């Protein structure tokens, strides 16, 4: 069962919710941090941390002797990552999307692939939670291959919670693809509502069941509640604003350390999500 925790808007408490949900489990489960540009689950989970494994993507290498300069590789490449000149064939690995097309098309078998590092995967554990984190190398522009590498660590059985990146672009889609249900964390402000609306649109295009957790539920107005009611989106949890939670979060302490009574709410939510299996939740 793969549960994605997402939020169109950053800073709504997505990571706090993902970690709290993970710690509420009564059985071993996994927490995958797919917010690879800014992975923060480790701050709240405080797992043991194993040495990282590099994640790389294949990029072409051209054997200049075998290359006949026919130019088919360059013509096929949609990203201008290969340039064929009379004197040499040049590769631009930073533009390569690793589609493998050039290697396949080369009639001289002059192209092979070598690995280029884009980030790292860390693993570790805290109590019943097995933690996996993807961390993008600074300066890298493309995130989906790293996100897919983190998701390949998901165990086929049992519960997997996925902390997703913010936004609605390719990073989010790579993280939520193949999940059974999405928990959307929002706040009752105009920015929160607007970004919730955008994210719901995307998730519906992907046909993913979803529900909402409203964080800081008393700081704004009622428009998020009305939106959810109109759209028949279940609101699974409301967490009132609490300066103690904000202060604790700021120091990297989990929500449950400050408000242990919320543990019951998260445990119930996790149980319901697991039972749900995506059937009854809003699509």
């Amino acid at each position, binding site marked *: 069962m793969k549960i994605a925790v997402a939020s169109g808007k950053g800073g709504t408490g997505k990571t706090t919710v993902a970690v709290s949900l993970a710690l509420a489990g009564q059985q071993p489960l996994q927490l995958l941090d797919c917010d690879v540009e800014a992975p923060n689950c480790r701050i709240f989970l405080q797992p043991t941390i194993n040495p990282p494994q590099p994640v790389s993507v294949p990029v072409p290498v051209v054997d200049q002797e075998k290359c006949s300069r026919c130019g088919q590789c*360059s013509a096929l490449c949609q*990203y*201008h*990552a290969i*340039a*064929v*000149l*009379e*004197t*040499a064939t*040049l590769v*631009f690995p930073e*533009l390569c999307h690793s589609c493998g097309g050039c290697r396949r098309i080369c009639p001289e078998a002059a192209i092979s692939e070598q690995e280029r590092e884009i980030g790292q995967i860390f693993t570790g554990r805290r109590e019943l939670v097995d933690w996996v984190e993807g961390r993008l190398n600074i300066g890298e522009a493309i995130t989906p291959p790293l996100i897919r590498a983190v998701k390949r660590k998901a165990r086929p059985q049992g519960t997997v919670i996925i902390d997703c990146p913010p936004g609605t672009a390719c990073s989010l889609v790579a993280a939520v693809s193949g999940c059974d249900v999405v928990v959307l964390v929002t706040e009752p402000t105009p920015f929160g509502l607007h970004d919730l609306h955008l994210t719901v649109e995307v998730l519906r295009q992907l046909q993913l069941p979803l529900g909402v957790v409203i964080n800081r539920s008393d700081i704004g107005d009622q428009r998020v509640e009305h939106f959810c009611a109109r759209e028949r989106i279940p609101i699974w949890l409301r967490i009132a604003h609490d300066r103690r939670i904000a202060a604790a979060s700021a120091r990297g302490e989990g929500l449950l350390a400050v408000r242990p009574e919320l543990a019951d709410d998260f445990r119930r939510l996790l149980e319901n999500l697991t039972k749900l299996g995506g059937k009854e939740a809003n699509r």
Partner: protein
Amino acid sequence: MKIAITTNGSNLEAPVGQRFGRAERFMVIDPATLEYQLVENPGDPAQGAGIQSAERVARLGVSALITGHCGPKAYRVLQAAGIEVYVGAQGSVAEVLEQHRQGRLQPAVGADVEGHWV
């Protein structure tokens, strides 16, 4: 040997195009006779505009390229093609051609701007 100069205009009075990768066209000029041809540079790819433009220039059979700014990927292609690159050219094509003839333009030893999407 012929020279290619970036421009968004269509004659010798036109200003030199400042961004090599996004130049609308190249003027391929014989500096001895001032006869020229215009070669269009269409396409506005999300990435690799400099590379695409440089590949096009490489096929023109020119010995030199004159432009405003050239990024690292484009520079790499032009260098591999054995083309001398001049950057920082300002003014009209005719003015810049004259500067080159007088040896007042310095060949670039690398890119003069960061590559990016713009």
